[in-house]
């Protein structure tokens, strides 16, 4: 197998891999929404309700704070 053939195989598999990653990511976005794991569209409201006194769309909870401190 010469270098050109190797490049051709490399090119094909890299393209196939990237297509797989792209469609995989789209599948991941839609399936996590369908399964109720995460509602991505609610994050659009971060721009609309952005007063400092507005309730955050997703608050950093006390538990998160503690986890972060432990990690630090």
């Amino acid at each position, binding site marked *: 197998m010469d270098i050109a053939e190797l490049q051709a195989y490399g090119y094909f598999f890299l393209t196939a891999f990237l297509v797989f990653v792209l469609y995989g990511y789209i599948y991941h976005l839609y399936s996590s929404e369908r399964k109720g794991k995460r509602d991505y569209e*609610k*994050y659009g409201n971060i721009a609309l309700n952005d007063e400092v006194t507005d309730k955050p*769309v997703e608050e950093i909870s006390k538990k998160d704070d503690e986890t972060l401190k432990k990690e630090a």
Partner: protein
Amino acid sequence: MENRPLEYDYTVAKLFMFTTIVLGIVGMLVGVILAFQLAFPEVNLLLGEGLAEYTNFSRLRPLHTDAVIFGFTVSGIFATWYYIGQRVLKVSMAESPLLMALGKLQFTLYVVTVAAVVVSLLAGVTTSKEYAEFEWPIDIAIVVVWVLWGINIFGLIGIRREKSLYISVWYYIATFLGVAMLYLFNNMAVPTYFASGGIGDWYHSVSMYAGTNDALVQWWYGHNAVAFGFTVPIVAMIYYFLPKESGQAVYSYKLSLLSFWGLMFVYLWAGGHHLLFSTVPDWMQTMGSVFSVVLILPSWGSAINMLLTMKGEWQQVASSPLIKFMILASTFYMFSTLEGPIQAIKSVNAIAHFTDWIVGHVHDGVLGWVVFMIMASLFHMAPRVFKREIYSKSMMNTQFWIQTLGVILYFTSMWIAGITQGMMWRAHDEFGNLAYSFIDTVTVLHPYYTIRAIGGLLYLIGFFMFAYNIYKTMTVGRRVEENELQTASPMGA
């Protein structure tokens, strides 16, 4: 949370709004002078023979490009970050005296650096690397400014109340990391005075790269400066300002995420299209072409997402000049991200390379997309940071049409000029002798260069109207209450 402040603090945002406007005027004014010099060479002697050294095309050209890139656009990026960053993270700069002090320090150092750039470029002190003309002491100052900005980005993220980072924040982070990487690697240089033990001026340097390597690094940098200076941060702006001004949440948040990763992955490989038919390896040229065409997808992903955000609310485009600016910006974004890939196709590039069509492409992108979006951002921010209504809606409308006409005159004249040039350069008789000499093309192009200069002048006039409108907003605009600032910006007649 009892110490929670009631208001965002826009001190640093206001400072950078000021430099955005001032440096925009400088950069565009110099641009118009250059356009007239190309049409009428005697303009090179604008201030007489004695000062010709400072007013000729070659001395002023880097001042134009650097003032609009590193002056106007980068100021606009900083100004909008210090506005959007606080709001989408729901944390005020006033809550952190350290971040506030670093923000002010960043601004001060930025102004000093800009002054050094203007003086050194006018004096002819340059590394002669396109878009990277600054000598090493200025480069180091720029790195410090950038790092201070980074500390502010991650500092604000660190003390945020909103758990998820809004899509605009992702784009600002990408801007910070992308530009940092590009700038550091492309500007690697050896200070000649220190390396040689005292020969020459202390501030001079030579690039670490030479020949084809230099070309590769230069266009990896140059093209991605378009990516991380003219695309990524501007997308960050429109993802915040269009939904906020129109009162409509972004059409598809999922599409915004997909486009983000698409753009991040694809853009970095496209720079090779600047080096088609040059000495770089053939596979690299092909890769540059292919990735440029693929780049249409993530670019249009964002642009279509913006247009669909207006779904059911298109009457706002007619009624609000601010929405008009943003919709035209995203339309020009679609247009120039289609035009770029077309130019990157090898057979098209064989005609387009080195011609004015490239100049036309750059300018429909920056005048139609970047500047329109930054002006729209500042128009949206002005009532909120100054607590005053925008001074004049009719002036905004007039400005919009004058500048739109300016952009159209600019890019259509450059299309015709570029394709004419490309065709004339390659025309030959049956023996292979070239049909035209260079001066033949110059004669033919003169009317188009004049039209381009007029287009640029119209755009500059519009920019002065923008500056005046913001100044009047700041000083005499009607004072507004907080409840008038929820969605659409208040505007005076």
